[in-house]
C-alpha cells in the first residue's frame, strides 16, 4: 500500500527538481492536447520547441524575448523572497518606458554619446518611482500591495495611451497613436549585424550576477530571506522592515523599468500603445518557475520565451492556433504548483501483509 506522509522538512532536491518535472509534464500534456486537436504530437512539439531555435537567427530571437522576462523576474525575486507581492511589474515597465521614451523624444533630432545613458537611467528611475507607490502605501498606510500594484498597471497603460494619442504623437504621423522614431543615439546598440539581439542582454546578465551576490553574500539578502520565512522573526531580530520593503520594491521597479527601456530603445525604436505583450505578468511565472534563484530564472526565462516563438512557428507551419502558446504557459505554472505538493509530502510504501 502507498501512503502519503508529510515530510519533516521540505526537500531541497525536490525543490529544484519540480520545475523540471513541471516542464516534462507540460510537454506530455501538450502532446496529448495536440493529439486531440488532430495534429501529430511529436511533429507539433518539434515545431514548438526545436524548429524556432534551430538556426542562429532563431536563437538570437529567443535571447531577445528572454531578456525582458529575465530582467523583470530577477527584480520580482527580490520582492517575492521577502514576502512582498509586487504584481505590477507590467505597470513599472510601462512607466519606465514612458519616462525613458520621453527623454529619448527630447533628443529625437540629435545625436550624441550622452543620450543613451540618460535614456536608460530615466527608464530605471521611472520604474522605481512607479514601484515606490505601492511600497510607500504598504509601509505607511498598510494597504495591500497586490491590489495597488495591479491596479496601477491599468493606470500606466492609460497614461501611455494618453501620451501617444495626444501630446507626444508624431506631428507627421496623421494623428495615429505613436510617437516619432528615436534617434540612433537613443537606441541600444545591436550585438550582431542582421540580428535584433541588443546590448540590453548585458543589463539582464548584470542583474543576475548582482542579485546572486545580494541574495547569498550580503546581510540584506539574509534579512530578506528571514522576512520571507517569518515577518515576526524579522521584527524580533530588529530588522528595519519598512526600509527593506521600499528597497525591494525600488529594485524590482528599476528592473522592470529597464526591461521597458530595452524594448523601446531596442527592437521598437519609438513609443506606441503596445510596448510590452504583458512581459510584466509573464515574468511572474518565470520568477516562480526559476524558484526565485538567479540561475533558475535564466533557464525559466528561456523556457517561457520559447513558448512564444514556438506558438508562431507552429501556426505558420502546422496551422496550430497561436493561442496554444498561452496554454503552455498556463500548464507550466499549473504543473509547477501541483508538483510543489511533493515538497511537503512524500509517498511511502507500506507492507500491509505484516
Amino acid at each position: 500500500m502507498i501512503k502519503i506522509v508529510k515530510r519533516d522538512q521540505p526537500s531541497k532536491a525536490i525543490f529544484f527538481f519540480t520545475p523540471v518535472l513541471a516542464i516534462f509534464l507540460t510537454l506530455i500534456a501538450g502532446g496529448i492536447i495536440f493529439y486531440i486537436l488532430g495534429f501529430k504530437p511529436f511533429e507539433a512539439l518539434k515545431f514548438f520547441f526545436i524548429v524556432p531555435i534551430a538556426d542562429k537567427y532563431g536563437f538570437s530571437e529567443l535571447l531577445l524575448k528572454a531578456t525582458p522576462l529575465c530582467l523583470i523576474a530577477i527584480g520580482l525575486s527580490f520582492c517575492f523572497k521577502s514576502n512582498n507581492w509586487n504584481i505590477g511589474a507590467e505597470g513599472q515597465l510601462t512607466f519606465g518606458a514612458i519616462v525613458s521614451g520621453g527623454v529619448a523624444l527630447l533628443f529625437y533630432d540629435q545625436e550624441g554619446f550622452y543620450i543613451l545613458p540618460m535614456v536608460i537611467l530615466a527608464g530605471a528611475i521611472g520604474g522605481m518611482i512607479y514601484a515606490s507607490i505601492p511600497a510607500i502605501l504598504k509601509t505607511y498606510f498598510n494597504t495591500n500591495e497586490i491590489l495597488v500594484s495591479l491596479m496601477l498597471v491599468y493606470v500606466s497603460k492609460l497614461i501611455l495611451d494618453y501620451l501617444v494619442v495626444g501630446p507626444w504623437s508624431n506631428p507627421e504621423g496623421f494623428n495615429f497613436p505613436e510617437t516619432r522614431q528615436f534617434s540612433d543615439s537613443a537606441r541600444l546598440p545591436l550585438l550582431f549585424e542582421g540580428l535584433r539581439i541588443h546590448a540590453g542582454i548585458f543589463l539582464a546578465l548584470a542583474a543576475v550576477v548582482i542579485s546572486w551576490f545580494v541574495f547569498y553574500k550580503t546581510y540584506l539578502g539574509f534579512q530578506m530571506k528571514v522576512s520571507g520565512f517569518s515577518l515576526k522573526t524579522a521584527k524580533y531580530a530588529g530588522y528595519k522592515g519598512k526600509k527593506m520593503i521600499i528597497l525591494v520594491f525600488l529594485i524590482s521597479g528599476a528592473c522592470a523599468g529597464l526591461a521597458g527601456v530595452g524594448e523601446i530603445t531596442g527592437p521598437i525604436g519609438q513609443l506606441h500603445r503596445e510596448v510590452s505583450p504583458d512581459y510584466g505578468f509573464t515574468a511572474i511565472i518565470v520568477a516562480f518557475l526559476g524558484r526565485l534563484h538567479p540561475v533558475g530564472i535564466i533557464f525559466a526565462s528561456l523556457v517561457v520565451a520559447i513558448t512564444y516563438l514556438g506558438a508562431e512557428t507552429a501556426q505558420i507551419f502546422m496551422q496550430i492556433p497561436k493561442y496554444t502558446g498561452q496554454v503552455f504557459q498556463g500548464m507550466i505554472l499549473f504543473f509547477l504548483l501541483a508538483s510543489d505538493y511533493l515538497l511537503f509530502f512524500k509517498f511511502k510504501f507500506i507492507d500491509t501483509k505484516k
Partner: protein
Amino acid sequence: MHKFLIRSFVSSLVLLFTLTVAAVAKDVKAAFVYIGPTGDHGWTYQHDVGRKAVEAAGFKTTYVEGVPESADAERVLRQLANSGHDIIFTTSFGYMNPTNKVAKEFPNVKFEHATGYKREHPNVATYAARFYEGRTILGTIAGTMTKSNVIGYVASFPIPEVIRGINSFTLAAQKVNPNIKTKIVWAFTWYDPGKEAEAAKALIDQGADVIAQHTDSTAIVQMAEKAGVYAFGQASDMDKFAPKAVLTSVENNWGPYYVDRVKAVANGTWSQKDTWHGIGDGMVVISGLDSQMPSDLQAKVKKLQADLASGKVHSFTGPIYDQKGNLMVAEGKTADDGMLAGMMTYVKGVEGDIPK
C-alpha cells in the same frame, strides 16, 4: 451505367478544374498577419474571410493570428518572408514600421500594409477602404429612424479614419433630420467587449435611441438589443447577434482585393500602389436592410448606395461647416482625398471635443 458516366464526367471536370487552377497558381504563397483572433467577428474575421477567398482562387495561404504590435511583429514578418511566402498582408496599422523594415531585407517578397501611409520600399503597397461611404448610409438610416434625435456613437481612437466616419455619419443624418445630435463616447480600444458595452450603455442612458460604432466587437449591438434601441453592425454582418437591434451592417470585403493582388504576383504584374476603395469597388458592402425600416427609407438607401458607387453622390459635399461655424467645404465642392486623409475636426452637429 448512365449514372456512372455522369459521375466520371463530373469528376474529370473537377480534376480538370483543379489542374487549371493549380497551373494558374504558379505556387504563389500568401501570408496574413492578424492583430486579433480569427473568431472576433469583426476586423480580423473579415480579413480571414478575404484570405479564404484567396485559397478558393487556388493559392496557398498561411496566417498568424493575435500578433501584438510590439517587438514580436517584426519576427513574425521575417519568419513568413523567410519561409517561402511571396506576398504578405499585414492587417493592422501598428505593423507599419516593422513591415517597412522587413520589406527592405526581402526585396523579392511583396508586402501589403492595411491602413498605413508608409511605402518606403518599392515592394510595399498600402490599402484601405472608404468606410466613410458606408457611414453615409448608416447616418441616413439613423437620422430617419431616431425618435429622440440623439444618436450615440462609440468611437475607438481620435485618428482621421474615425473622425471622418463620425463626420460622414453626422452629415448624412443631418441631411434627413436637421435636429439630430451625435454624442460620442471614446472607448480607446478597437476590441474590448466590456468597455464597448459600457460605452453603449452610457449613450443609451443619455437618451440615444440609435447607436453606431467604430469598434469591432459584437458587444454594442447586443447591448442595444437588450435596451431595445437600434444599432449597426461593424465589419461583418452582425444581424445574427442582435436581430432586432441591427438595422444593417457595413461589411469590410477584402476578398476581391486580396485575390487581385495575389494574382498580380503570380502574373508578375504586381506593383506598388496606394489603394483606397469604397462601395463602388466592392470593398465596402452594405448588408441586407432590416424589415423594420419603412419601405421608402429602404428605397432611398438603395438609391444612395448606387449613387455613392457611381460617384454621383460624395459623402463630403459642401457646404460643410465645423463646430464653430467655419466653412470647411464650399457649396458645390467635395472634399479631396488629402483633406479626408488628415481630417481632425468635427463637423457642426457633433457634440463635444476631440480628445487631445
